[in-house]
């Protein structure tokens, strides 16, 4: 039964979960980029990579919680821009204290998400269509109200947080940016929600089989409304992080730019589009993979303009490699079971 010692490491790597495979791809990419471009591991590059990946992780979470129920939220970016401008309005125009502005922005995000969930449950229309329409409504409404004028006079402390870091720096290893700590804290909260709370298990049950969940007494409609409100609040959190990183509230950020990252991070990380399966760790690794590829190609100075091509190709390749590994594992297990 026991595999030969020589095979243990390789079999561990092959038999591990999807997240292990993803982690391996990441390690290989980091080794390649670090070798090809010394600038990749510089303090400056690592710091900027971690600060941008922190936002992408939370954007991925905003999509992940809806994917858990088998739905989609195409308005993540639209809620994001609304939250960006609303936070700027609360801090700069109304002059509210930062914690109040943060709470107000998160509440707006949750409310817009709730509207999505409410419309989906009440009309019975597919979440794709409802959120496609609400994305137009939200960003159109935001532009009508703000006239697309950016807000640059945010409190300096708010922008300073986006640049700050926690813990000491060791040699070339930089301190951890505060934004990355925020992303990890949100991840921990979601991990506990999905792993150890009744509500989280109910969300996954709805995603795996809504009819069966309904018959087991789970309030399916209420669960769907909840995940959309949570998705809105997470999009607003990502928006706050982005506003803090840029130290300004700009209407041109987020929006359509979030569509691709919001799906890639969870899907690469093993979250199923059909619902019922999520991975918080996978989403974090997925966002890291996307940012690593982007950052690595930028440091290697492979023409900026070609970047989206490589990004699309690398991502398909990463998904394919992971699929191939999972299929190999399944075959191996079937063979051993005989």
């Amino acid at each position, binding site marked *: 039964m026991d595999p030969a010692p020589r095979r243990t490491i390789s079999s561990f790597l092959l038999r591990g979960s999807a997240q292990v495979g993803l982690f391996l791809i990441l390690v290989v990419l980091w080794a390649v980029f670090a070798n090809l471009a010394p600038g990749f591991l510089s303090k400056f590059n690592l710091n900027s990579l971690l600060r941008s990946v922190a936002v992408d992780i939370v954007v991925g979470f905003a999509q992940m919680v809806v994917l858990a129920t088998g739905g989609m939220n195409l308005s993540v970016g639209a809620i994001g821009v609304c939250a960006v401008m609303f936070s700027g309005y609360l801090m700069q125009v109304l002059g509210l204290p930062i914690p109040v502005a943060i709470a107000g922005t998160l509440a707006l995000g949750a409310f817009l998400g709730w509207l999505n969930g409410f*419309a989906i449950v009440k*009309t*019975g*229309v*597919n979440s*794709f*269509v*409802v959120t*496609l*329409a*609400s*994305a*137009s*409504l*939200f*960003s*159109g*409404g935001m*532009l*009508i109200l703000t006239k*697309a004028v950016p807000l640059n006079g945010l409190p300096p402390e708010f922008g300073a947080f986006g640049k700050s870091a926690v813990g000491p720096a060791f040699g070339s290893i930089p301190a951890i940016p505060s934004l990355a700590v925020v992303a990890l804290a949100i991840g921990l909260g979601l991990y506990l929600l999905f792993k150890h709370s009744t509500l989280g298990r109910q969300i996954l049950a709805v995603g795996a089989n809504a009819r069966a969940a309904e018959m087991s007494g789970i309030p399916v409609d209420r669960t769907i409304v909840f995940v959309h409100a949570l998705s809105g609040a997470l999009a607003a959190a990502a928006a706050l992080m982005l506003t803090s990183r840029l130290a300004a509230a700009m209407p041109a950020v987020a929006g*359509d730019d979030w*569509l*691709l990252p919001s*799906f*890639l991070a969870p*899907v690469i990380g093993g979250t199923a*589009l059909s619902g019922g399966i999520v991975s918080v760790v996978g989403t974090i690794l997925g966002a890291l993979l996307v940012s690593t590829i982007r950052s690595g190609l930028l440091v290697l100075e492979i*023409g900026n*303009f*070609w*970047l*989206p*091509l*490589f*990004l*699309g*190709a690398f*991502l*398909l390749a990463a*998904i*394919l490699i992971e*699929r191939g590994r999972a299929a190999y594992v399944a075959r191996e297990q079937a063979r051993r079971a005989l």
Partner: protein
Amino acid sequence: MRSFFRLQWSGILVGIIAGGIALALSAPAFLSEFNLFVLLRSICVSLLVAYSQMVMLGVGQMNLSVGALGGLVAVVTGGLMDALGVPTLPAIMIGVAAGGAAGFVNGWLTVKTGINGFIVTLATASAFAGINLGITKAVPFYNLPADFVAFGNGRLGLFPLLLIVPLLVTVVLALFFSRAVPGRHMLAVGGNAPAAQLSGVSVPRAIISAHVLSGLLAAVAGILAVAQLGSAQPTIGSDWLVISFAAPIIGGASLAGGAISIVGTLLAVVLIGLIQNAMVLVKVDPYWVQFLLGALILAAVWFNRYRAVRVGES
């Protein structure tokens, strides 16, 4: 009369007529020959974009790369004419072929890898946009043949020459989905893929054909956009996503697949064009167009469901 209201697109037609009358009364410029020409020309590209997505909805899939694919074909065609000096007709043919090839890549990847088509086309959209930017370095191709640009701006009275292409495509698509075997196969796969497979329909072939057809339609849309603008802008297609889904869905297509309406899609594009035209005529903030488009999608799906329930009851 009752059978008219049972038709899926009856609501849209009523909306177009009521909106048209209201607009003609409030803004006399609406009925001027030039305004009607502008209105008709504005729907040419949208119509093909909508058909490109409608085909995918028919087979029960989505194509998020419609805009990126159309944009890529636009700059490839423009680049062939401007940088390489290829004559108009061969350049257009190569552009359309490139669109079909890109659609084939979408379909082949979806079928062969088993990855959800939504994710595949999201990734290829990024790839196509990257090739577009890599070729153009974000600089448009301006130097296009005069006959090509003249076609994009030409008109007979209020009838734009450009409109010939989408009208022709409409007829061909209507025949394809009602009479041709591959068209019927696509709808069968969209309606119930396992049942279609058991009935001897090749599901992979139907999905790949739908992707190729979608790519061809997006390619023609991209080329028409170049003719209309008079230059091959790298930004062509970047704002097609919402309209590509909005028109077929307002027109009554089901996201579950198998049910599409060409007349409904056509009327939905006209209605959206009418709203955009109205915003210009009554001088409203252009941002309202985006807002109203969202409201219109929601209202239409709501209305369609309500109507379906009522028809089911009677």
